[in-house]
């Protein structure tokens, strides 16, 4: 197997709610390698979203380290974290993935624009990516004119556009019917196989889990 992309050491996250402390994650040790297709599973409240947010630099650990390609995320400032996310992480969220006023093409190009990639190049790449997720004929549609499954596929294309080190998808199929969910997973798996892109996704769905090549099971904030 390849080299490690993500190394997690003794990671804990405690949320304080008034006097209560919620131990969302406790002493997690994990290594994710280049080219993995990994599912994080576990009951609701087990800490899946928290873990993915930590890896993606959206939230900061209470203790422990996350190292992505030799960079310790704890050492980054707020602004450095934004750039880290832009250049290293592809995000697919459960909802609100796309900018409603922009077309599919513009949504995918947008992230490359944030990276200051010339529009000619970004446009070409966006079209290629939309074709690779099977939406070559819908590039000029706005999100509201696309089905939920199509929207999530645009989100996958957008996540790939910035050439990230890995893609994080937090319950990407939660709002989809089973057929669209399967279709999305197939596309993700294809990209993983062909382009060796690392995918980490969380899910409740048994059929989605079945597609994963590695499963990390969480319970009460611990890996089991």
């Amino acid at each position: 197997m390849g080299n490690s992309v993500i190394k997690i050491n003794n990671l804990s996250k405690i949320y304080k709610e008034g006097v209560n402390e919620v131990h969302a994650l406790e002493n997690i040790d994990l290594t994710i390698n280049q080219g993995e297709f990994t599912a994080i599973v576990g009951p609701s409240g087990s800490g899946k979203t928290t873990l993915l947010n930590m890896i993606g630099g959206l939230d900061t650990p209470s203790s422990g380290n996350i190292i992505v390609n030799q960079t310790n995320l704890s050492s980054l400032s707020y602004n450095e974290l934004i750039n880290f996310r832009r250049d290293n992480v592809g995000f697919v969220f459960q909802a609100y993935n796309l900018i409603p006023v922009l077309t599919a093409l513009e949504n995918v190009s947008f992230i490359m624009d944030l990276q200051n990639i010339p529009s000619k190049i970004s446009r070409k790449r966006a079209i290629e990516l939309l074709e690779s997720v099977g939406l070559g004929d819908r590039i000029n549609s706005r999100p509201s004119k696309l089905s939920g499954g199509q929207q999530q596929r645009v989100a996958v294309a957008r996540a790939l556009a910035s050439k990230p080190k890995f893609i994080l998808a937090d319950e990407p199929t939660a709002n989809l019917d089973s057929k669209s969910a399967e279709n999305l997973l197939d596309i993700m798996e294809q990209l993983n196989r062909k382009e060796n892109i690392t995918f980490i996704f969380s899910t409740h769905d048994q059929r989605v889990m079945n597609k994963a090549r590695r499963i990390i099971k969480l319970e009460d904030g611990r890996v089991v």
Partner: protein
Amino acid sequence: MILLLSWKNIWRNKLRSIIIITSVILGLVAGIFVVGFMNGWVKQKIDSVIEIEIPHLQINSKTFIYQNDIENNFDISILEKKILQSKRVKALSPRIIINTMISSAHKVGGVQVYGIDPVKEKMVSDIYKNITKENGNYFNDNKPYSIVIGAKLAKKYQIKLRSKIVLSMVSIDGIQVSSAFRVCGIYDIGNPPFEESRVFVRDKDLREISSLPINRVHETGIRLIDNEISTLEEAKGFIIPLLNKDNKIRTWKEVNAMMGIYSDYMNIELMVIVSIILLGLGFGIVNTVLMSVMERKSELSMLMAIGMSKKKVLQMIILESTILTSFGGFIGMLLGLIIISTLHNTGMDISKSMSSVGEFGFSTMVYPAITVIQFSFIAFMVILTGILSAIYPSKAAMSINPAEGIRQ
């Protein structure tokens, strides 16, 4: 791309965008109109005061200013020719001013009688234009001992055209003298206090009664070629060296302090009014933009999550309100200009809405006008307010925690 996104965001909630554009337009039009109206109103008042009541410049002996006694007079003969050499001076009118008792068949009271040369006085004051046909004229008939009085005085003393009235005064020799005059004209300038206190007779008649020597006067009124402040200062500068130490020259602003204040402090007053308008406008825009930011919380969270920097989010939101404000600003400027220039040409009759105005000596026709500086200042401030008002809401947008925004 940020520009494109801002542009598209604007059309997301058309109603809201239209509200912002409309407030900017209204703010600008209101600002331009108020400033224009005030300019017109004050200019109207100043012009009519200068043309009728107080000349651009007037010369008195210093003692006369504090006490209007008959003996506080000065010699005009040489001075008159010297003053008229100034290119800024249009006309000059020497005046004898004496406090007298006036008595009609009904009433007795005090007035100031002005002894003037009608030909010269007509070139300094437009009072003669304010006598209607049925109220006689300004010394047109060559009858001696004629008098022109104000409408208010005529009413109060029940004096009619061609009535006889008697003026009593103390002559230069300290003797009580009196003489009868026949009313040849009644002027109405819409300023009752003025009309009640000033009557006009020929200087040679008054000189005869009061035994004031030839060439001795109490005041010289000077009319200049225009109403510009620069002309006023230049003319004053020209005349000061001609005066001896007992005489004093005063501008209309110095004679009527209220009018001076009107004209000097008007810009400050206008700035206060414009600021109030801007405050309202700014408050409205802050609220509206804040609402649009809060509605987009999830989306903004997503944008920040995938790597859009705070700076770019700020840029996007400020750009949105800049586009709206500039658009509204452009229309508002155009509309304001059209309104002002139309009203400037047609004039506004404010007698209906402000019926009390006429009684205080304000003319009821106002011709709004605005200077380029005032206009650009208002436009600049309105647009600046629009842009600055977006800063607080965008700061609010940046305090969004992307991780939390996404969870919702």
